[in-house]
């Protein structure tokens, strides 16, 4: 074979010398490509993992938020019922009675701009011994708020009677 290249040697003076560089293509190392593939694969896996994590994280957050929302809704419902119970006419009436207040049988109005009294103003009737406020029968108005209000009410009623009014409410009064 040693004679073959000599055979191919072009004659001198016949243009640029061309030579085939043998065995270059295909000799490149396979490692970079393998690394690239592995890299892409790894990146894909990591991305997938992160995506899954993010999704799980979101769903956990959503669940927690929903739970919180449900709790807050329950609480809101509970509180608004309690408020409605406390501001119900029956509850207001019994608390007012406990403080020695009486309904006014003779409505009268004061016009603040002219100072004119409309209607016949007269002193309210003396309250009969006030009964202790009974639970109003509303399920939410029971418990601490009512009992604390009634205890403070009876104390303030006592102080008002010592202040010289004819009202003498007592919590131990007999029913009307």
């Amino acid at each position, binding site marked *: 074979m040693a004679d073959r290249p000599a055979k191919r040697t072009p004659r001198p003076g016949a243009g640029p010398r061309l030579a085939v560089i043998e065995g270059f293509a295909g000799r490149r190392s396979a490692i970079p490509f393998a690394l690239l593939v592995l890299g892409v694969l790894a990146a894909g896996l990591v991305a997938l993992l992160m995506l899954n994590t993010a*999704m799980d994280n979101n*769903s956990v957050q959503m669940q927690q938020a929903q739970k919180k929302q*449900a709790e807050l809704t*329950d609480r809101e*419902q*509970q509180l*608004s*019922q309690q408020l*409605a*119970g406390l*501001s*119900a*006419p*029956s*509850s207001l*009436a019994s608390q007012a009675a406990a403080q020695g207040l009486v*309904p*006014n*049988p*003779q*409505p*009268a*109005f004061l*016009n603040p701009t002219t100072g004119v009294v*409309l*209607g*016949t103003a*007269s002193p309210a009737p003396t309250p009969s011994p006030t009964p202790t406020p009974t639970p*109003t*029968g*509303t*399920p*939410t*108005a029971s418990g601490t708020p009512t009992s604390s209000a009634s205890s403070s009410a009876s104390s303030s009623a006592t102080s008002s009677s010592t202040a010289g009014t004819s009202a003498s409410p007592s919590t131990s009064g007999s029913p009307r």
Partner: protein
Amino acid sequence: MTQPPQPPRPARSRATAPLRLGRPKHRLRAGMFALAFVFSLYGGRLVQLQVTDAGGYAAKAAADRTADVTLYATRGSILDASGQPIAESVDAVDVIADPLLIAQQKGDPTVYASKLAAYLGNPPGSVDVSALRSKLAKSSSQYAVLAKQVTPTVWKQIKALNLVGITGNQDPKVVYPQGAIAPNVVGLVNSQGEGSSGLESEYNSLLSGTDGKISYQAAYGYEIPTTGINEQAAVNGTSVETTIDSKIQYAAQQAINDEVAKTKAALGTVVVMDPRSGAVLAMATSQTYDPNNPGTATSEQLGNDALSDVFEPGSVAKVITMSAEIQQGVTNPGTKVVVPPTLNTGDGYVVHDDTSHGTEHLTLNGILAESSNIGTDLTSLQLAPNNMAERNAILYDYFSAFGLGRQSGLGLPGESPGILASAADWNHSQQYTVAFGQGLSVNAVQATSVYATIANEGVRVTPTLVKGYVDGAGKFTAAATPARTQVVSASTAKQVSEMMESVVSDAGTGTSAQIPGYRVAGKTGTANRYVASCGGYCGYTASFIGYAPADNPQLVIGVYVEGPQGGNYFGGSVSAPVFQKVMSFALQEQGVPPTGTKSPGLPITW
């Protein structure tokens, strides 16, 4: 190394049997046919799957993957006039046990019972533990309701116990945060969540709303991401905003309860209306119940007596007769009438007055103020002198125009229209008694509406209980404006109104209805009460209907007490004080100041 000699290779020779080369073309063709055959099977199957059966498989797969969750619509509330709920639906959970499963899982009913008892009952922990244990131990059953309608908070605590065989079932309950406010009007919701009486029944379809649904793709119970959720949101029920003023309702309820207790009456009702809008602000009946505990109520207590109970109105109906006379132009408040001690109508019927008297010289105003039956009959004959049939027909037309004999228009279930026989059917005595309110029957709302008509310058506004509707998003839609009809002229109404002020004056029968500073108009009624159980007239119906301020009426109140016991049975002494109490409260509650004008003080005698 020595090798055995090898025989020389036979020389290639074309002379020997020729080795035939393969025919690649044929092989390829055969292979292709084989492959094509196999692929055609695949293809065929593919077509079968993807084209022919595709829909069915896809639907089956989707059904297998799809999870459905019902979204329950929240029932609307019944609101009072200020928008505060009277009846409100809240989340609640029934606690259900599967005793069979508990037994299979070797659960100990005693342990279950003691764990659960800490959370059940009201207050929590007050439940009967042994009853709970026996329910849980009954392993022949798979369904035992341990507690009805516990709050979501309690249920969460129970769920956290992780007891096998204990499940929760959504069962929203209706609560009454303001206590018993007009329970007979509001009505009840049954265990199926349907309104069974009152407004809850009348507006059930509006209040219930429409349940929604969430559908999503799930695997092993978990949502498959990115597949999308198909959510059909629940449409929450629409709330009904009533015209009921909780505070006036409460005051009316207290006042009538006290009076019925004091007089040992069979029944008492109070109706409060705004004459200008026809709005019913309060409707209280002594036969009532606690909506938080309706199980103990009798069927009478569950009804609404202000609409279902009818009674003979008595003298309160004289206002209609006098309106007819004045409108027809045959009398005026000053018409002078000689009222004899009795009126013999012939045919054996003699008209008497409440209290015996000699011959009196009363004006028409005086007849109303003293509530003379004889005077009312005598003047009513002037509607068509010497023609009883025509006079009866005219009277009937007015009674009917004022809304008697037909339903009030509230639309609540169980209303009785009362009885107003047509004029041609009136018997001899009835021809005379109808003019002063016997021989016909009305319900409390009808009677109050008559006075609202006079108060509203002769224009009858159909009574209404509903102000509007609040949908799930909080949007308010006003209810349709009630129908208005001119029954008598404004001038007639004014004259009758001034006469009714004389009733409440010191000379009239309704003095205890006076509110100092205010002009009050009204009329007492003391009717003979028909009682079926005694087969005739036994006892009385004491009533008072009136309004204030008389020259600018903003509130009309009717008080009806049926069957008061003892000697005190007059409308002026039984019902007028209740009117006074409720009216003076309602005037303050609604902020209605006195008008500052003077009552005309029409003459009573001549």
